[in-house]
């Protein structure tokens, strides 16, 4: 139940610029997400895992379509550029961000794969290369869609899961080295981009340019102090801090509720982490373990990167705070994650109740 309540943390006082329509919209998403979560709770995650390759294909097609729009720099049907990025597919008044759901698909896919082939997990080809190929494909499509940060988080998530699945550390180290190498390459090729990435270290110097958001975010956090200015008393949300209701909502939480408030948020994320990992450890099969770990990891990684971004520990990038930020896809995917994790928990509960405490080893 902890997971469901954490979803209520979304605060209506986010910013006066969001009128009630966006609040209602978000509440609608929470309601839909809630229904979906309850449905998934009663749905067998194992079936989902078996269907994962179809999800991968659907997501892949959507991402391909977006990548196309991004490459052509043109509004294709169902695609609208929002702030120069093509990340959303519009269906009527709804807009969906496929990259948010790609993570879930990947996790389900990995769970399915490693459940079936966990004896090969130490193998280079079968344990590492084969499953990585479709995942890398999705990753490339997300990058092509112009969303580097989401790709990187997804990459970290995948590496984390590969570690859990027992893939050899040296392969993972190779992936890490590849990432670092790519980063160095980018830095070499384009010092301009590099400078933009590293500008987060001194946002005040570029407060009128790239550092604008971050500097205002730091001002918001700093003026919050240890105990905050008080609920709804934020000043920086008054058009000073852009995206105050979205990616930078935690800056406002920090301003209104202070260091203490953000510590509570971190504790909640840690609790979520603990809960999902506990469910993973008690899951009745490898699928459940991987699914619960991956989904918990995904949400916590997002939260972590978001807090890092708003406090200037990481380079500024558009990452939402799960359960808190405004955004349908983010909320929906978080609640879907909750639903699936609950489904894993339900399965182990049921096993416990029925006295079938034995772990279900993979049958070959």
């Amino acid at each position, binding site marked *: 139940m902890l997971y469901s309540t954490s979803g209520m943390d979304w605060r209506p006082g986010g910013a006066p610029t969001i009128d009630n329509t966006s609040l209602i919209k978000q509440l609608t998403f929470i309601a839909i997400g809630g229904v979906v979560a309850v449905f998934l709770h009663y749905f067998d995650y194992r079936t989902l895992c078996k269907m994962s390759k179809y999800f991968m294909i659907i997501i892949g097609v959507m991402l391909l379509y977006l990548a196309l729009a991004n490459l052509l720099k043109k509004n294709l049907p169902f695609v609208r550029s929002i702030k120069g990025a093509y990340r959303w597919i519009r269906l009527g008044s709804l807009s969906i961000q496929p990259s948010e759901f790609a993570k879930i698909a990947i996790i389900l896919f990995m769970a399915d794969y490693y459940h079936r082939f966990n004896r090969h997990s130490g193998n280079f080809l079968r344990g590492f290369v084969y499953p990585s190929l479709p995942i890398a494909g999705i990753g490339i499509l997300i990058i092509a869609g112009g969303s580097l940060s989401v790709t990187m988080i997804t990459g970290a998530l995948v590496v984390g899961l590969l*570690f*859990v699945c027992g893939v050899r550390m040296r392969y993972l180290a190779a992936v890490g080295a590849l990432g670092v190498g790519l980063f160095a390459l980018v830095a070499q090729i384009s010092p301009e981009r590099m400078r933009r990435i590293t500008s987060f270290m001194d946002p005040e110097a570029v407060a009128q340019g790239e550092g604008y958001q971050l500097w205002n975010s730091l001002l918001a*956090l*700093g003026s919050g102090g*240890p105990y905050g200015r008080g609920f709804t008393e934020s000043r920086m949300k008054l058009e*000073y801090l852009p995206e105050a209701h979205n990616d930078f909502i935690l800056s406002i939480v920090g301003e209104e509720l202070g260091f203490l408030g953000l510590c509570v948020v971190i504790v909640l994320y840690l609790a979520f982490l603990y809960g999902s990992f506990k469910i993973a*450890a008690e899951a009745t099969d490898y699928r459940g373990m991987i699914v619960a*770990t991956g989904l918990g990891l995904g949400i916590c990684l997002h939260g972590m990167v978001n807090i890092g971004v708003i406090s200037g520990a990481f380079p500024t990038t558009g990452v939402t705070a799960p359960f808190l930020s405004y955004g349908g896809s983010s909320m929906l995917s978080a609640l879907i994650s909750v639903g699936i994790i609950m489904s894993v928990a339900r399965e182990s509960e049921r096993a416990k109740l029925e006295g079938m405490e034995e772990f279900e080893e993979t049958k070959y």
Partner: protein
Amino acid sequence: MLRTAYQTRIVFLGIFLATGFILLVGRLRVVQIERHHELNKKAKAKYTSRVKSVGIRGNIYDGTRIPSPNLLASSKVAYNLLAEPGKMGSRREEVIQKLSRLLAETDKKTLERRFYSGSQEVVVQNNVDPILVSRIQQMKLPGLRYVESSVRFYPKDSLLCHVLGYTTHEGSGASGVERVYDKNLQPQEGYLLYERSRRAHKVTNLDEQKPLDGKDIHLTVLEPIQSIVEDELDRLMKEVKPKACYAIMANPKTGAIMALAQRPHFNPNDRNTMKPQNYNPRFLVDVYDPGSTMKAISLAGVLEHNKNIGLGTPVYCENGMWYYGGRPLRDAGHNYKNLRFWEVIQKSSNIGTAKLALTIKRRQYDVLRKFGFGERTGINLGVESKGILWPEKYWSKLSYTRLPIGQGISVTPLQMVQAYGALANKGRMMQLHLVDKIYDPILDKSKYTHPIVKNMEVISPEAAAEMVEALKTVTKKGGTATQAAVPGYEVAGKTGTAQKVIPAVKDANGKVIQKAYYSDTVHVSSFIGFVPADDPEFVLYVVCDEPPYKFRYGGKCAAPYFKRISEQTLSFLNVQPTIKDKVSRK
């Protein structure tokens, strides 16, 4: 078992993530607690704003008590018209066209230059009249903004302009009363400190100080009398055509200035009329050798200090030419033999005055100092000259015969009024002052200027009374200023026809080519007197600077205007005539 390995790795991953979160807590601690003060200050600077609010500058009134004071200077609401050319789009040219047609002070060229300067916001014109503003507003032009301001306004235009002065464009006093009493007139600025959104939406007020209006100044000058004086000066300028002229009227019993006017003058509402020769307050800064008007002062000193001399004492006037100290002294155009003391005054004999003054040789300097010469009057109207009166140790033998007739001493007109005020007030000299009271609208209290006795006894009342008797003869038959006589009233007065000093001319090496000398053609002609002579309502000094040669005598160019001003003023003040029968008026 594989499962245990999975579980171990899950725990590892969990610990790894938890460590990350804990590191973030550390990072937040740095930002939120360690840098709290710094960042809070910078954030506050962003979202708090302070706006000034300005009160209204005090008014200046005249000294009329009943029915109510006349307003002489006031502030009225105006608007500063600002424009944001970037918001006008394609209508920019149209805006320039329409505004330049409506605003007289701003032409098309200036507007074009400002509108295309690339600035986000430019001033179109400051202090635009509200009526004009409403007309501009009706045209619904884009990108215009109006900021309330105030503009100084003088309802009587040029009346009393030299005393009132004027203000700068920013609204602080630049000269005259406006400047000297600027601290009193100036409103106290208020402010509002508030928190706002980035687009200037007010959220909460933190602190507010309401502006305080400035204090009102009530002058001693009476507007009706001032009008009379100014009308007469205008007439003088038209009829006599001197270079300049001025008139000062004061109440000898209190020292209050009743009128103070000067020509040429300016209109403080119209900056085009403000040229230095128009706005320089000459009655404060001009010094000149006063000539014969000084005789009454020096001879009053003789009456005071030489008890052997009375009004009837005869003095031999050397047939109009007297050598003393190796230089000749003449009685302009007259050859008097024996004159009595009062006749010396009446005929304004230079020789007679010099000889009489020599009898108190050593006291002359004291007398002049006591009458306030060589010293500022302290009227408090800005920069004031103190005239030139050399200490006695610098005097030559000649000085003792020339200073009493008003040569070799330079005075300001105000000093002269002050000295005659002492004569009129039975030897008691009052401090000249211009401000009657300062009214504080916030406390609803007035601070009055009480008359200050500057010198209890410049000369004894007896000596003063004797001198008044002598001065009465000046306007009578045989006197130098019969034209100054006011029917029905006794006038005590004295003419002055002073030759102007032509400054020395030096060559390029600083060597004097031509010494300074008294001109035969350029004069300062004046008449000073008080009415009614024995119980005076006012002292009036009318001065003509450089009148045409045929008007060079004070009795001719200043006296008639003295009479006209006095007549009207007495009638305005409802003063009972002192001479009842019709015959004696002639």
